[in-house]
């Protein structure tokens, strides 16, 4: 390097360093305010409203679980299982001796049947027929025909047939041992021997407990009064035929739908991973121009929503936490232009600009209401559809909130006797907009995702 060049460089360095090295300029008040706002903002998990929101959510969840448990404890036995237990308990051999006057009504009931007469359909009055027809035929009869369980309770299969099917002359004949030739338990055989030939009334007090229900049934039919056994009635032949066609799985669903009519409170959890579809609006403003707006790739706009709440009668009330990610690129147009020469004396003029890439995460906490409709399809099985609205407030620096309209439809599965899961596509449209760092740019976030819903306490 020439000495003159070096001298010039040194002179410039000395002058510029002395003038500019410690050059300071205070940012204006707006910049200070903006920076203070950004710095004073605590991380979102430290923000008080976030804390209160979480506390509220936990209380809500706790209350839901408490109510659910209370319901489980206070429920009277209803439905199939409860009736089955009750029926078996009535004929439990061990419990019968503890009832001192049990034999008397049996004798009275038996004595109500005229001697030497058979009990058949002809002997039943019209009123009794009507009673039979009106009797509630429930699928729980199948449980009574569950031979293994009944035999465990001291009943023979012959007895079960007597209870469940219309009585004819062959099954009920005075003086005939109903259980002759049947394989019985040792106790039942003993009782049967004791009672052999005793159908005319002698030694009734020693009658086998296994025939008590049969005699009660006879007396009920004979007297024309309705039998005091809950949930047991005469099935009509068409009922039995249709019942025989019902597969266990569809029966379960049928029972579920019947029981859902009880309008029990159900506890609902939802998880929805989604992608945000961005609708960008750029407002014009004097002084500068925003150009080359591009929506970013798919991964950077993935978000999620968690919800917890209660359902009653198909209506859901949920507390939701959402995280919506938006990402876009744009440029502030500068006063520089670039001319690109093209063939045939053509030119392309491009305006240069300062490129900005902006990604933003918005946390929202809100309340949602949904209506869920469950239905079945022959091909697809158990399906659901939900339509709902949600209003959520921004957590953090942003103020205001967003109103959403959402829709989901898909398939439901029973994953436990009291738990079901619903999975299906989810769409959410936002009526509000998120402001970008440059207030001239607003983004309308609509979500497309997968709704996964867990419901506790439906099938009881």
């Amino acid at each position, binding site marked *: 390097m020439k000495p003159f060049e070096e001298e010039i460089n040194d002179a*410039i*360095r*000395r002058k510029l360093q002395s003038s500019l090295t410690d*050059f300071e*300029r205070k940012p204006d008040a707006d910049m200070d305010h903006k920076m203070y706002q950004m710095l*004073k903002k605590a991380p979102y998990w430290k923000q008080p409203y976030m804390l209160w929101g979480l506390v509220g959510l936990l209380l809500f969840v706790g209350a839901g679980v408490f109510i659910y448990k209370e319901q489980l404890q206070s429920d009277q036995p209803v439905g199939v299982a409860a009736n089955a237990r009750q029926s078996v308990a009535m004929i439990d051999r061990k419990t019968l001796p503890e009832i001192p006057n049990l034999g008397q009504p049996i004798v009275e009931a038996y004595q109500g049947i005229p001697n030497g007469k058979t009990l058949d359909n002809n002997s039943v009055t019209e009123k009794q027929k009507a009673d039979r027809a009106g009797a509630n035929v429930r699928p729980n009869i199948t449980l009574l025909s569950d031979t293994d369980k009944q035999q465990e309770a001291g009943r023979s299969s012959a007895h079960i047939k007597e209870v469940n099917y219309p009585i004819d002359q062959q099954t009920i004949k005075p003086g005939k041992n109903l259980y002759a030739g049947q394989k019985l338990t040792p106790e039942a055989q003993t009782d049967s021997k004791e009672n052999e030939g005793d159908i005319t009334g002698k030694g009734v007090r020693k009658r086998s407990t296994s025939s008590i229900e049969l005699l009660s049934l006879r007396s009920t039919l004979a007297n024309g009064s309705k039998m005091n056994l809950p949930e047991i009635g005469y099935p009509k032949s068409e009922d039995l035929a249709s019942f025989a066609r019902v597969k266990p799985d569809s029966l379960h669903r049928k029972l579920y739908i019947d029981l859902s009519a009880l309008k029990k409170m159900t506890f609902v959890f939802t998880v929805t991973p989604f992608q945000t579809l961005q609708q960008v609006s750029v407002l014009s403003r004097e002084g500068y121009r925003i150009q080359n707006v591009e929506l970013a790739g798919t991964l950077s706009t993935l978000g999620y929503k968690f919800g917890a709440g209660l359902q009653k009668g198909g209506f859901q009330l949920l507390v939701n936490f959402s995280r919506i990610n938006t990402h876009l690129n744009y440029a502030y147009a500068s006063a520089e232009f670039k001319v690109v020469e093209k063939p045939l004396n053509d030119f392309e003029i491009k305006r240069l600009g300062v490129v900005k890439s902006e990604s933003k995460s918005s946390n929202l906490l809100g309340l949602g209401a949904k209506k869920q409709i469950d239905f079945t399809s022959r091909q697809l099985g158990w399906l659901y559809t939900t339509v709902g609205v949600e209003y959520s407030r921004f957590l953090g620096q942003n103020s205001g909130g967003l109103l959403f309209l959402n829709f989901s439809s898909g398939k439901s599965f029973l994953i436990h006797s009291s738990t079901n899961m619903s999975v299906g596509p989810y769409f959410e449209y936002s009526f509000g907009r998120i402001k970008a760092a440059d207030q001239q740019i607003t983004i309308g976030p609509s979500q497309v995702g997968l709704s996964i819903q867990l419901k506790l306490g439906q099938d009881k």
Partner: protein
Amino acid sequence: MKLFRSKSKLGLSELVQACQKQDSRAQVLFYDRYKAKLMGVCIRYARTVSEAEDIFQEGMLKIFQKITELKNPQSADSWVKTIMIRYAVDYYNQVTRKENLQGPYEDIPLELGTNDPEDLLNKFEVTVLLETINELPDGYRLVINLYFVDGYTHAEIAGILGIVEGTSRSQLLRGRNLLLKKLEQKGIKQYETF
């Protein structure tokens, strides 16, 4: 809590350590400490005040993101300046095409009306010097700031700008000559005003 009460009397090390723990009040104090100095850096590297504000805002956030990487809190003064300079360079790398940094700009011969360049420079106030530097094309402005004001070597400049060392030298030469030419023109105008 004791730490918060005495925050205004914190030394630099304690302040940096509190910032490393994401203490928002310490971050405000840290910002107040460096804001004027760093805004000055941004003004030097930017073409306009609005661009300088953009660089300043994003650069400050970058500093708070990277402050956990600062091992020696006592070197915070030079560290924050380095981060801001690098962010300013990145900012222009996004908009200035590489060929503009690599050249070629037209050769600007050095034609000074005086034999003492220091004499020429001494005629101008800081604001005029700054204004003239800001008028230079991006590539020249960056190299002049890096070499003359902030004291980087050509090898370091080449690394920061992603160019070869020879390009850094030629860019500096052309930028310097253009700066002096502009200053001389401004000097003549000043004389004409008198």
